[in-house]
């Protein structure tokens, strides 16, 4: 920990800040760089799915709990917004109600599924997600069944219209940056460290005085909040919601985003979301069998970078750097493993 004050670490941190600023500027410049509305919409989609994946990553990566039911939580938020707007309520009411109802549902999900861990946890979340899907599909008087519910207008917070692709992109970007900051702060916090501890040694954490169940519950709620935020953005983005968005495939896709990008890393889920959205929307215009391509990319990632693309790329880049014969203090395992990036300290190679 004292290593934080040592000069090489400070330099690395400055470099990181610089990279962060550049990334934010690049994200702001997107609508100027690609003026076509279609591609700006794709960028919005990447960001909103990135929020979804970040939420899932809190559970999968940092808590070590794999959920296959998150599309259900995503869908609850989206459906509440659509339903309340159709019933004539204001955007503010619809959004707040969506977040509250999603959080209550998340608490229910957590209470039921945290009785287990490992495979049993996956199966319980899967079943819960399927129940939500079943309700959306079959409770036609409430959800309009397979026909879904349309949303007539997007909100205009502070007179700033979100009806254009660019307007919606910037709103999504702001929410995305807030979500990213929230996750980054959480991961470095004592509670975040405790969460990673419950992932690695739950028994020890219990003996050390931690309430393992409650820590996991908090993580589940945080995860559910981010998922609900993504769901609200989604329903305004597509201006329509149908059971398809809640299906098991949607949960699995979220999981693939997290794992392919790198579970337990900050940027992994963002990369994973970009990969899935781009292949689905852009590559599919040129390649009929885009599903096959997505599968091939996942296989390649799993074979060459089993820890996910972001930490894997960092590892490979470092290896290449070392091969060039440059001596440079390497950060021990750094980003390759969750929760350790800010705790491990420089050492000689």
């Amino acid at each position, binding site marked *: *920990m004292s290593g934080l004050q040592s000069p090489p670490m400070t330099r690395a941190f400055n470099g990181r800040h610089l990279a962060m600023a550049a990334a934010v500027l690049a994200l702001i410049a997107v609508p100027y760089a690609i003026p076509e509305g279609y591609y700006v919409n794709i960028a919005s989609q990447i960001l909103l799915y990135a929020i979804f994946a970040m939420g899932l990553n809190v559970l999968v990566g940092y808590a070590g709990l794999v959920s296959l039911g998150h599309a259900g939580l995503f869908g609850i938020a989206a459906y509440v917004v659509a339903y309340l707007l159709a019933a004539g309520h204001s955007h503010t009411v619809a959004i707040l109600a969506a977040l509250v109802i999603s959080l209550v549902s998340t608490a229910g999900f957590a209470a039921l599924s945290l009785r287990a861990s490992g495979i049993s946890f996956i199966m319980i979340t899967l079943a819960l997600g399927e129940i939500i899907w079943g309700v959306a599909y079959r409770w036609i008087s409430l959800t309009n069944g397979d026909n879904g519910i349309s949303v007539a207008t997007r909100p205009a917070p502070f007179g700033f219209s979100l009806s254009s692709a660019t307007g919606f992109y910037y709103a999504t970007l702001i929410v995305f940056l807030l979500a990213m900051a929230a996750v980054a702060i959480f991961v470095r916090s004592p509670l975040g460290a405790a969460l990673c501890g419950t992932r690695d040694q739950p028994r020890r954490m219990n003996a050390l*005085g931690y309430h*393992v169940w409650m820590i996991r519950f908090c993580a589940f709620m945080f995860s559910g909040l981010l998922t609900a935020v993504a769901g609200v953005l989604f329903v305004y983005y597509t201006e329509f919601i149908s059971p398809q968005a809640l299906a098991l495939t949607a949960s699995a896709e979220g999981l693939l985003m997290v794992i392919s990008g790198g579970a337990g890393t900050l940027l992994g889920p963002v990369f994973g979301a970009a990969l899935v959205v781009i292949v689905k929307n852009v590559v599919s215009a040129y390649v009929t069998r885009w599903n096959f391509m997505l599968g091939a990319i996942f296989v390649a990632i799993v074979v060459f970078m089993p820890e996910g693309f972001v930490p894997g790329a960092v590892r490979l880049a470092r290896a290449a750097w070392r091969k060039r014969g440059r001596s440079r203090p390497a950060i021990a395992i750094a980003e390759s*493993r969750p929760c350790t990036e800010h705790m491990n300290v420089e050492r000689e190679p």
Partner: protein
Amino acid sequence: MSALVVNNLCKSFGGLRVTTNVCLDGAPGERRLIIGPNGAGKTTLFNLITGELTADAGWVKLFDRDITRLPTRKRAHLGMARTYQIITLFPQNTIAHNVTLALLGLSRLRWNPWAELVRQEHLAMQAREALRRVGLAQIADRPLSQTSYGERRRVEIAMALAQNPKVLLLDEPFAGLSIDERQEVRKLLLAIPRDVTIVMIEHDMDVALDFADRISLLHFGEVIVEGTRAEVVANPRTREVYLGE
């Protein structure tokens, strides 16, 4: 007032009785050694005392407070700390972070989701102090995955000591150590102040015997001999079950 009292504790796994009417009475500051052959139920007894297993019958008191039904985490807050025979640490983190987690476990800060953990100076200082006590301060920032087995044993002890326990349960602290490392760990345990009550499981009689005030010999889940070192060593049943004669 006794520091730790175990009364008629029983535990069965199906038809197998692993703990049968075990009684222990540890005075404050006492060094109690629990010996017994493999499968005698020593670690099970520890798990019952810490609450990681629930007893079928009997009770456990910590400073006159009945803790039999208390969850493990609450026992930690009451001053009970343990180490594990099978090393149970956080291999992806540094040594210092391992000890910090031990400190954080008893701190209200553990629920804080926004403060930056590495900036909590008081935790960092306490962690360093605990590591100094076990002689690991100079490698505090090393990832645990790059430490030796003997160093990990000492991290186990540092984590328990960092919590400032009143009752410390050591599960085979010498297991797997070389002769030199044993001597180091022995010195370290001897330096623990007398206000800490220590219950220790140990196989290695040579290192452990002179450490103990009283010894309990466990066999098939029962305490069959209890007394001072001389009494236990002289007892014919000890020779029978433990020394193999």
